[in-house]
Structures are given as C-alpha cells and as structure tokens.
C-alpha cells in the first residue's frame, strides 16, 4: 500500500475530504473496477476529482439513497468495487435495510463513506448531526468500520477498504485534522495503536477525539497522572488484544468519543472488557440525547469534549 501523502505539500493539518478525494483518484488509477457513487453529494463528498478523471466510473443517483445503496450492491455483484459517499444520516440510516440485506448479508465489497460524522456540521442541527452511527452500523454482521484520525490514516483506510472482501464503513469528519502519523505509517485493519504510553489509566479514543485526548493526557501528565492513549481506528473488528493488554496494565479505562455513549466506541471497548478483563470504566461522550445546535468549538465545549474538560473528567474518574 503506497502512501502518496508525500507527494502533497506536507502540512500539519489535512482536510479529510480532500485526502479521501486524492486517495480515491489514486485507487481509481490502480484499479479499473473502482467506481464512485454519489447522491447529489459528489462535490461535498469530494468525489469531484474522481468524476473529472473517470467520468464513466462515476454514477450520480440523486437524492435517493435507498436506490444508490442497492445500486452499489448490484455493481459489486459484477466485480466492481463501489465507493458510495454521502452525508452520514443518509448513508447510515435512510438506506439501512439496503445496507443490511443487499450489502452486509451478501458480504459484497461495497465501501461506504459516512461524511460529516459527529459534530462536523453541528450548526445544521440534530438531523445532520449523527451521534448514533457506530452503534447502528456495528450491529451488522460482516461489516468493517474505520474511524480514522488524521490524513495518513484516512488515505490508507481508503486503500485498505478496497482490499477487504466485504463491506467497509468509513467515518469521515469535516474538520481539518492535525497530522500525527508520519509518512511511513502503515494502517492495518483491526489494529489499534498506543499513541502515548502510560500506567495509571487507559484512554481509548478515535477520530476527532484523538488530538484532544492527547492534549488532555499532557495536561494530566503535568499533574503527575500517567495516561496511556489508544487510537482505535478500526471500530469493528476492534483490537481486542490491545484493549486487554493496556487495561491489564492500567486497571482503569476511559473512552472518549464524539458520539453517543450508547453503542459507541466505549461500548465496543466495554464488550471486550466485560467478558475478559472487567475493570473500572468511564465513557466520555454524548449521553443519550440529540445534539443541541451550535458551532463546533462551542458544542464540543458544551458536551465536555475539550482537552481541559476531558482531563477534568478523567481526573474525577480516577478520584472515585
């Protein structure tokens, strides 16, 4: 898997949608079976470049996601490898039964890009702010879920998805993300990583919460609390071994996610722990409610997802 991030101007921050667009074009060059499906979403979902280069392999199906998801399944039965991209609620929920019956049950190689996860577009309100996708999608057999945290992960996740025999759901955030991985980083499906070693508590996180959690860890480090930060970029199948080895060391686990705590990353981690290493755990996320409306910086503060508030939550948890 080649990482063409080096060809780009190295910047500290990457736009996930631009990274996806570049990766799809590169993948399309290498594999003629790659097709791109959009639902009046090709510009927003950054498939515009693919369309310019491979117009015959781009299928626009309009604002009709049930059909688009079924079409993706049909293409996959003919050996095509569709990437379908649309706003999160419309690809995760509107066509859920098509995803379940036509793609997951059949285990077809269809790759779904859930754009604008979490509070990406929180000013658009709760219809567009999806905090439940991981729970809903994770319940489906045969599917793989990626939730990358930075440019190199996003880029390589696209290539990994095409290789996996079966559906892959990739959560894509709208905000530019600080690059934490170097260009020689290798993304492996199902493998998490220790971003910062520590001994007192394990903080499991993903996607947009990786950087704030690292910052929270630094805040607490200065207070003498040692936090091990895990980046879980594959939500399903989750890296059980890493969760177990880290939690065996620290004996305490915190999950941090821009998602509901009902059936999110924390639940996926708890599923592992409750069976094999039941330790004390706290889930930091959104507590079973629909989002309020607001700008990103205000809303993450409101829900306690800023570095300082995450640090406070972890500190309080450790006091109990």
């Amino acid at each position, binding site marked *: 898997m080649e990482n063409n991030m080096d060809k780009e101007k190295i910047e500290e921050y990457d736009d996930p949608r631009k990274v996806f667009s570049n990766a799809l074009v590169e993948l399309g060059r290498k594999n003629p079976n790659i097709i791109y499906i959009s639902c009046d979403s090709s510009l927003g979902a950054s498939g515009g470049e693919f369309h310019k280069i491979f117009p015959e392999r781009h299928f626009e199906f*309009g604002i*009709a996601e049930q*059909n688009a998801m*079924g079409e993706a*399944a*049909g*293409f996959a*039965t*003919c050996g095509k490898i569709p990437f379908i991209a649309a706003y999160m609620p419309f690809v995760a929920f509107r066509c859920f039964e098509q995803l379940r019956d*036509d793609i997951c049950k059949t285990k077809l190689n269809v790759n779904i890009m859930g754009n604008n996860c979490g509070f990406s577009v929180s000013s658009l309100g709760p219809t567009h702010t999806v905090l439940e996708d991981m729970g809903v999608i994770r319940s489906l057999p045969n599917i793989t879920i990626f939730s990358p945290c930075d440019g190199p992960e996003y880029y390589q996740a696209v290539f990994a998805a095409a290789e996996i025999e079966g559906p892959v759901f990739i959560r894509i955030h709208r905000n530019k993300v600080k690059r934490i991985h170097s260009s020689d980083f290798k993304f492996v499906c199902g493998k998490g990583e220790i971003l910062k070693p520590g001994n007192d508590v394990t903080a499991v996180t993903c996607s947009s919460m990786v950087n704030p959690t690292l910052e929270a860890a630094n805040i607490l480090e200065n207070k003498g609390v040692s936090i091990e930060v895990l980046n879980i970029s594959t939500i399903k199948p989750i890296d059980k071994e890493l969760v177990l080895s880290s939690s065996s060391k620290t004996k305490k686990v915190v999950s941090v996610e821009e998602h509901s705590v009902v059936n999110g990353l924390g639940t996926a981690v708890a599923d592992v722990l409750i069976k094999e290493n039941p330790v004390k755990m706290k889930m930091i996320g959104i507590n079973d409610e629909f989002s309020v409306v607001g700008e990103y910086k205000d809303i993450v503060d409101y829900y306690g997802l800023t570095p300082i508030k995450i640090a406070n939550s972890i500190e309080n948890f450790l006091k109990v």
Partner: protein
Amino acid sequence: MSYISSNEDLRSITKIKKLTKDEIESLISKSYNCRVNILKMMRNAEGHIGGAFSSLDIITVLYNKILRHDPKNPRWPDRDRFILSAGHKCLALYTVLADQGYFNEEILWTYGQFKTRVAMHPEEKLLPGIEFPTGSLGHGLPVGHAIALAAKLDKKNYRVFVMLGDGECQEGSIWEAAMSAGHYKTDNLVVIIDKNGLQVNGLTRDIMNISPIEDKFNAFGWEVKKIDGHDFNQIYEVLSVVPFVKGKPSCIVANTTKCKGLTFAEGQFQYHHWHCEQDKIDDSIEVVNNVCRKELEKIGK
C-alpha cells in the same frame, strides 16, 4: 406507450417469432408441473402460493425461451440475469430452476426443514441460479439496474430482467430506481410487473392504489407494454422484442390471476400465503392437473 390487447396488435408493431403449438404445449406442461411441485413442497410447510402461481407462466417462458443462461455454469459472466424482486414468489423460481437442471429436484422436498436450501425467501448462497437474495420488497430493481449499468460499463450485451409484484410498487425505492433507469436510459433493463391485483391484506387498489401503473412507468422514461400474463404467446412475444425502444428501459405490465391454476383459490387474497391443510394437498394437485389438461385441450383445438 403501447398497450397490447391481442397478439395481432403486438405483431403489427414488431416482427415477432411465434411459438409453435408443440412449444406452447411444452410450456404449459412445464408451468403446471411446477405448480404441482409447489403443492408437493407444501406438504412440509405453508407458503406464498398466490404470487408463485400468478408469476409461474412468465418465469417458465423466461427460463425456457428468453434468458441466455447455462444451468451448468450459473455464474457465466455473460448470462442474462433474472432477479425476482418480489422474493416471496420464490416457490415459482425454485421449481423452474430445478426443472432447468440448476439443482436436483430432491432439494425441493426439503422445503420447511431446518436449514433448508429452499427458504421462504431466496438466498443466493444457498442455491445455484439465485441471482440475488430478495425478500424485503423494493430491493431488486436498484440492484438489477446497477447490474444492467455494469454490462454497459463492461461492454457486455447481457440483459437484466427484474420481476416486481404490483403491491411491491408501493415501495418508494422502486420509484427511485425507476427514475434512475429512465435517467440513464438503461435499455438492457426489463421490468415485468406481475399484476395480480392483490396483496397480503386485500385488493391493491383498496390498500394503496398503484394505478395507472403503465402511465407512471411511462412518465419515468420507460417504454411500457401490457400483456395477459397467462397467455404464453403474448409473454413470449413481448419478451422477444426487448428493448421496446433503443435508449429506454422496458416495462411489461402482465395482468395475472393470483393463485392461477388452483381454481378455488384464484383471485383471493387469502391465498397470498396459504396455511394449507394437509388433507387438501392431493385434491389441490388434482385441481391443478385438471386445469392443465383443459389448457392443453384449448391449444389442441
């Protein structure tokens, strides 16, 4: 849009091969033998007999006379595809596939058993010849349309035939896909609507009227023809001339009778899913065989 009310009307529009008397007799025998086999399967369990019997004549003609397919090589890449979007009619498909040699007829008699391969809705992983799994209504047309588009992308000349139920046309996804096929001018896609006028709870026109279905498909960019779905010549002739118009998807509205061939059940919604009493099976087989004899006699005259 052209409406076919008789063979003459259709022949005046296009140059069409006609079935010989022997061919029609063979098709009738096959179709009614499939009905008998379905009744035998129902010795094990209840089933969706109504739609199976209404669609059987069409599916019989498709597999015997229209589809380019190879039962010994079910995944032949250039095959024509048949997708039974109204998956609950699969008893018809199973019996036709068995007759075609896709699998041993013995498999039919496992119907209703634990882990049977002939489930009440078709699963592609369980049996050769099942193109795509269906069961939840409204899924087959989007899938079928993409397979037709993939043929164009791959410069292949196979066709895709999708059978819908008329009640199924109440699903919104059907219209999303219909709009899409009209938009892409997908002329290697053929929809056949098994219009038996009934659904689970009663008459389609009472529950949610789909009429005028021909005008609706026409308005979505399809070329539409209407036939008697139990007239073998009409079925054959209309399926022989697809696409009706180059650059447009084709829609066949087949007027059918629910539970066709089981006279006491014909046209009654209660037989959509028949909870059959076992002591009625032998009599039912006799009824179907009598209808078959009468149909053959009509051809003989």
